[in-house]
């Protein structure tokens, strides 16, 4: 019998409707652009908006007249929105969206900077970039802890608690021993302690992992808060005066404009954080450990039938995550501040958002953390130049950015298939 094969391609026409997701995003962007053009353009002053590129105010700078800049960048944002609305090829979506968002932010900045009082009407880009990295750092550690955990199939909502416990034990043991390295190890152990509880209850006793994470966060706040009041407040000299890591400058690289001060004049945590992103990324996708970790997070039964020890691997990864997050907590108390009650203040949850926004990959998490760090830094900067926007709204900025990023921009993401599902044999 002569035969004909049926073509594999789907051909039936589907009317998806006019309002596809890119179009909806485009409409919002267009509205934002128009708003920026009109509102920011009207509010901006005729002053120059200066974006200084060197470390001193007088050095090289990009300048644009305030009103002109606000209108110009607003039009860029509106045009990008219009392009999305009119329909662009799919592969250009991210690029056009990025251009539009950057235009909107720049328009906003032109207004703010040009309207700032004389003497403060410039934006020191070096400080902004540097501050972005500093603020992003705990998020990077937290999100990496999330990657380690969730890639092996255990949901880690306890990042906040791991960071806090790390910060606390770093401060306590650093103070007691007078040695930063002892503090660092103690911080890692502190983070791992919270992880151990998570691992035992989630893996051994099959407790709901999200609930367990929330409980552990409360536990960490309670325990560290209690000990802080009992020990650190009464005798700060003995218990809460940990030595700090200094900044290590890397010769030559530190003089790179803009990036040099941000990336190569930092403390050990900055270098460690960036190194960990690279190491975990390579390990996850290039090594035996990574292959097994991912298989356990996707299809534990399959891994088990091939002799991979599912539970052991999960224990190990959850503990490792605690170590990473603990060190992240120490990046506060062994480099910047002394310990205070609940000092992480929700960064662990933003790290969780960075994990999702970064699609469970270490490099993605880094970029997401930088994005949130920038929003945070921007809020600080605007407060400093005496912005007309109430400070409460500025304080909302990082969280607003988190909601928009995770809900709006990230679209559909696929978590590891077995994330949050306990593995029971048989």
């Amino acid at each position: 019998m002569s035969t004909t094969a049926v073509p594999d391609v789907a051909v039936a026409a589907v009317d998806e409707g006019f309002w596809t997701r890119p179009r909806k995003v485009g409409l919002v962007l267009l509205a934002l652009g128009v708003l920026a053009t009109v509102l920011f353009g009207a509010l901006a002053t005729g002053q120059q908006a200066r974006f200084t590129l060197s470390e001193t105010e007088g050095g090289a700078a990009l300048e644009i007249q305030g009103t002109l800049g606000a209108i110009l960048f607003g039009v860029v944002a509106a045009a990008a929105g219009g392009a999305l609305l009119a329909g662009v090829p799919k592969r250009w979506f991210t690029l056009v969206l990025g251009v539009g968002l950057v235009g909107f932010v720049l328009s906003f900045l032109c207004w703010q900077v040009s309207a700032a009082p004389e003497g403060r009407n410039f934006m020191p880009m070096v400080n902004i970039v540097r501050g972005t990295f500093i603020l992003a750092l705990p998020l990077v550690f937290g999100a990496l802890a999330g990657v380690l955990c969730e890639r092996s199939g255990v949901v880690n909502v306890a990042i906040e608690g791991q960071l806090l416990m790390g910060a606390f034990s770093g401060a306590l043991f650093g103070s007691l021993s007078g040695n930063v390295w002892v503090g660092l190890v103690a911080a890692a152990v502190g983070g791992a302690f919270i992880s151990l509880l998570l691992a035992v209850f989630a893996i051994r006793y099959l407790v709901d992992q999200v609930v367990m994470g929330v409980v552990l966060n409360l536990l960490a706040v309670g325990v560290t808060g209690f000990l802080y009041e009992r020990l650190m407040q009464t005798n700060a000299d003995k218990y809460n005066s940990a030595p700090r890591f200094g900044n290590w400058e890397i010769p030559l690289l530190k003089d790179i404009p803009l990036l040099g001060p941000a990336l190569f004049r930092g403390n050990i945590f900055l270098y460690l954080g960036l190194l960990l992103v690279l190491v975990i990324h390579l390990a996850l996708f290039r090594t035996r450990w990574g292959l097994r970790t991912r298989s356990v997070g996707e299809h534990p039964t399959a891994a088990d039938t091939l002799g991979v020890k599912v539970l052991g691997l999960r224990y190990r990864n959850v503990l490792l995550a605690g170590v990473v997050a603990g060190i992240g907590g120490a990046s506060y108390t062994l480099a910047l501040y002394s310990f205070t009650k609940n000092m992480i203040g929700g960064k662990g949850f933003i790290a969780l958002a960075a994990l999702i926004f970064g699609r469970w990959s270490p490099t993605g998490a880094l970029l997401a953390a930088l994005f949130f760090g920038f929003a945070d830094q921007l809020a600080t900067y605007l407060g400093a130049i005496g912005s007309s926007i109430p400070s409460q709204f500025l304080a909302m900025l990082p969280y607003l950015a988190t909601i928009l990023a995770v809900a709006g921009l990230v679209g559909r993401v696929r978590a590891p298939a077995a994330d949050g599902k306990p593995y029971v044999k048989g």
Partner: protein
Amino acid sequence: MEPGEIHALLGENGAGKSTLMNVLYGLYQPDGGEILVDGQPLRLKGPSDAIRAGIGMVHQHFMLVPVFTVTENIMLGAEQVRGGIVGFLDRRRARREVAEVSARYNLRVDPDAVIEDLPVGIQQRVEIVKALTRDVDLLILDEPTAVLTPQETEELLTVMRSLKAAGKSIVFITHKLGEVKAIADRITVIRRGRTVGTASPEASRDELAALMVGRNVRLTVDKQPATPGRPMLEVAGLVVDDDRQIRAVDGIDLTVRAGEVLGVAGVQGNGQTELIEAIMGLRPTLAGTVTLDGEPIHGWSTKKVLRAGVGYVPEDRSVDGLVKEFSVAENLVLDIYDRPPFGKGLALRPDAIAASAKERIAQFDVRTSSADAAVGTLSGGNQQKVIVARELSRPLKLFIAAQPTRGVDVGSIEFIHSRVIRERDVGTAVMVVSSELDEVIGLADRIAVMYRGRIIGIVGPDTPREEIGLLMAGITPDAAGSAPAGDPTGVADGTTGDAAPTPESPGNEDEA
């Protein structure tokens, strides 16, 4: 087991075949008894011990990570690494090994393809390659043909023969008699966890079936010719996506008439599930129309569709069909609990519910300790009868049954089939979707074959199995071909009975 032997393990669903093999593979621990390999007792603590002892297994549900490539899946657990303790994967070497093994046994797999993009038949080959790269001597195939088209099955049997020629032993678990007779050297029949006999492949089908079930069974469905009436369900240009937003139903037209059974055949995962769920209002329709007795019902809520006179047996009874923790009585009124006589105002009326349950348990021969027993404690067949009882207790215009007898014992199968036919005879339009070709052929008055989201042909029930098999594999008879088969455009009406002239009784007379 002898080296180079194909040993078939035959038994009904739930007879204990898979459990036995999972013990052999070290997944479950035996409660007693021992396993001998080359005369030595073997204690398996886990699958890695089994692999070391040279035992490999292809599971009924594939043990492949869907987002990994073929090579990654095969590497997993036995990775070749460089760089000492760091353990960088040696992908190149693994790829070469995959290519080598698949070439040696003529299993064509692309080492770089991602599993979720591959058809089921190829995924199965990946599983076999996975076992072979681990140098197994004994390969266990657990229900390997359940998800394959007849042609893919034929290819699998060829692969098995070449493995046998290479000196590998194979345990072949199945409940399909034809395949066993075609390939096995020795047959062991299992019933309710015990070996009930061994047979040679020369034994007749009826003998084997009787051994398997423990009594004589009828393998065909008794029914009179249908008397189709007016079109009851009309689907036109229907397009539906699956959960991953991938097109699953790709422009389907079909009609089911009152008083006829339309069987939908096809290999699992060709859009059957999505088609039914779209009709039932469980899944959004992207394009096209669904009409019930002249009234458009697409876009309706499921409740509204059910109350318009549609009965529905979902394909996965434990997920969609029943609330396992609820009692039999409660499950029997899940559809109309809020209507008289079962509900009044805000309250349920337990007396009415209990009375109706008692009546229907008797009527549908549900074997349960009481009407208050949790449905989850019943056997698969009795659970299915609870669903059928519930769905057939309303006045129906259309009855949709998906995989109505999956995981159901033979006795219940006979009962459910007779009920389906009785429903047809009172003038209901019936649509039966099944991946068991025998079931479709036995029940249907017309058979629609689905392939990749389309109806590739509609044929009569007396069409040769081979032809339906080709359709299931996506191959339509050429327009100028010898056999005037179904209309490949899928327009519903009228090819019933004018299919191939070869007289062949429907059902089990295939010789694989």
